[in-house]
């Protein structure tokens, strides 16, 4: 056989089937679980929010790449993921313009200006959610109880109750009287006000399992994030397990554990770095919750840890086989696109 048409590219000659787009599709499938929960708890308006956030994210990315003549990447579905995360991180009462603003901020400022997919240091969905909270807080904290959208009964989130009184929050003495929802309700999401994707922890756990089974995320990283929350709340409350569970099941903690802490682009690539990042974000979250007056500590905590990722990856590179010391990664990103 003498065939000129035989390929002569060097080894390896086979490639795994999975592509970036496939990975993003799996995240989208996993996010369908909280979406279904959101529709069940808050009604069809959820779909309107999602349609707007996803469409604006994809459009912003498309237009940006068109204007800057960059390679189109909307086919990788990552903008769709960002759109879903943005909608799911907002309360049902969030005005439409906040969704569009958040999408624009996430895609243009956070993602594309840093160089596009894989280059953004901050998590786009988290950054835009925090941006809204800081600058337009009154528009995006209208938390209502599930199934009460029509009456628009405003409610404090459980976190609002926990952190209402900073001094008391450190001890578990008073929270019980502040009408904390039952743990089961927190778990199932039945009567809890909050962001539309956060409410049902059961659905978030199912999504977690799906992502593990598909090998999209590493199973231990979300646990490393939750661990310090468990430990610190237990110690400060004198081992009050109910207080601990209230913290773990409240707010965006578990949603962030599964979907934000595991974000590829804004978290470390080194195995040790991933753990430091997750634990650091967990500790920072508790500090925010204890010493800051409003909910959203998870978001701040993640952004702060995002900022440390280059430092973490620089010094926590794996030890190379046969070497004594870890190498030091001077640069983590490409100079040229």
């Amino acid at each position, binding site marked *: 056989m003498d065939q000129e048409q*035989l390929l002569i590219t060097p080894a390896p000659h086979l*490639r795994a089937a999975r592509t970036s787009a496939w*990975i993003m599709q799996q995240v989208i499938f996993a996010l369908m679980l909280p979406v279904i929960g959101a529709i069940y708890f808050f009604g069809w308006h959820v779909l309107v929010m999602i349609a707007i956030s996803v469409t604006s994210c994809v459009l912003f990315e498309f237009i940006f790449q068109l204007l800057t003549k960059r390679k189109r990447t909307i086919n990788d579905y990552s903008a769709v993921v960002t759109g879903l995360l943005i909608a799911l991180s907002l309360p049902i009462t969030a005005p439409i313009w906040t969704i569009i603003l958040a999408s624009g901020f996430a895609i243009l400022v956070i993602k594309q200006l840093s160089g596009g997919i894989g280059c953004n240091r901050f998590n786009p969905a988290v950054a835009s959610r925090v941006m809204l909270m800081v600058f337009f807080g009154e528009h995006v904290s209208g938390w209502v109880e599930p199934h009460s959208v029509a009456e628009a009964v405003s409610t404090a989130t459980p976190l609002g109750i926990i952190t209402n009184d900073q001094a008391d929050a450190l001890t578990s003495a008073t929270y019980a009287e502040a009408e904390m929802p039952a743990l089961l309700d927190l778990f199932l999401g039945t009567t809890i006000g909050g962001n539309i994707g956060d409410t049902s922890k059961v659905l978030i756990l199912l999504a977690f399992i799906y992502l593990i089974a598909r090998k999209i995320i590493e199973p231990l990283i979300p646990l490393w994030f939750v661990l310090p929350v468990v430990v610190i709340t237990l110690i400060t409350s004198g081992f009050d397990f109910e207080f601990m569970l209230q913290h773990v099941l409240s707010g965006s903690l578990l949603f962030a554990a599964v979907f934000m802490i595991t974000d590829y682009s804004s978290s470390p*690539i080194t195995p040790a770095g991933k753990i430091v990042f997750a634990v650091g974000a967990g500790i920072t979250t508790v500090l925010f919750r204890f010493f800051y007056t409003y909910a959203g500590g998870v978001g701040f905590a993640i952004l702060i840890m995002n900022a440390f990722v280059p430092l973490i990856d620089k010094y926590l590179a794996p030890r*190379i086989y046969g070497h004594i010391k870890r190498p030091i*990664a001077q640069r983590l990103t*490409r100079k040229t696109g």
Partner: protein
Amino acid sequence: MKKLFHLMRKRQGAYTEDRKERTEHRPVEEAPVPEYLIFPLSMHIGAPTKPIVSIGDHVKVGTLLAEKDGMISANIYSSVSGEVVDITNHPTLNGDSPCIIVKNDYKDESAEPLFDPSIELDPTKKLQLIEQAGIVGMGGATFPTSVKLSPPPNKTIDTLIINGAECESYSTADHRLMVEYAEELVEGVRILMEVLSVNKAYIALETNVHESVAIMQAAIQDHDTIEIKELETIYPQGSEKNLIQKLTGREVPPGGLPADVHTVVTNVATTYAVYEAVKLGRPLTKRITTVSGEPIKEPKNFWVRIGTPINTLIEACDGFRSSPGKMIHGGPMMGKPLTSGRVPITKGSSVITFLAKEEASRSERTPCIKCAECLHVCPVSLQPILISNAYEDGDLDQAEQLGALDCIDCGNCSYICPAKIPLLDNIRAAKQAIKAQKED
């Protein structure tokens, strides 16, 4: 269960599909012997051999054709009887290079054995025979075995590892050798232990080949200094550095050799060749080669005379059932692509793999999404994407600091990358550039 386990542990390796099912239960058969056999003067790492025959000479099976030249080199013997018809350039694994061409007379006359097998030999003489027989690492590395077996006096050896972890997809040559020649292999292991004067040998096997595990287990029953180590089926389990770490807990230092950590690793096919040389006085003139892959009609394991062109083996497999897109000397992860079927089987040819065009084609590269999969699958704990980035940015210092020279070329990073970044291409290029820089 394996999948579940995979999720929970530190990965360091990739689950490539093993694709061995088409050949693993096929007994080894004699390959047809062609009319012309081609013996490249260089079929090993080290200096090419010097021909000692001339055109027109009559040779037999086991006649020395070319002798080793220098310390790191290995003798080459004729695998047929017939006549030397030419010494000329011919397509080989390393491009066109000088070869001795022997025309087969189909009489199959044998030369005298290397020694009289009835004489009892001492270890020094056994080592000499291994050297004389032209044995090299038959797993593909083709490093002269006698050199490996004679480490410098300051490097004591206490452990021998027999590598039966055939981790490349499709390849079943070593597996069939263990199934069909277990007793001979154990004898080979004992000879190697004697030559190295070690009293511990491990035979490393992957768990996916239950048959060879069971058979080898039975074969070593009476030898308590030989132990079977079953390893998870994960690529690149059979890499030398990896085996040493898994079996002894030692790590070969950067740029070092297994002897630096008191270990010698030998492939099973090499061990069999040692048995034939030292017990029967036969030089290395044949080996088992798997010919497999989707496009091949009847994939098989062959006893192949060294020097047989690949085309002869393709015919013996009834040709192709679909058109091949790639012909690889070796497996799909580390093998070398070939364009000519006239290339002969040499001492390191354990498998010839054929892939369909669709499976071998590369997909379009997309931006890195920082999934960190390349870090997880790297058996030597490199950060492939960072080395690749450094290389593409022209920063060779950074590439070197990040361990480009420690890369073992296993290909896992390029295999796993969802963005289809040619990571290993870049790391290899970085390695070459760094070495070139150092030579200046």
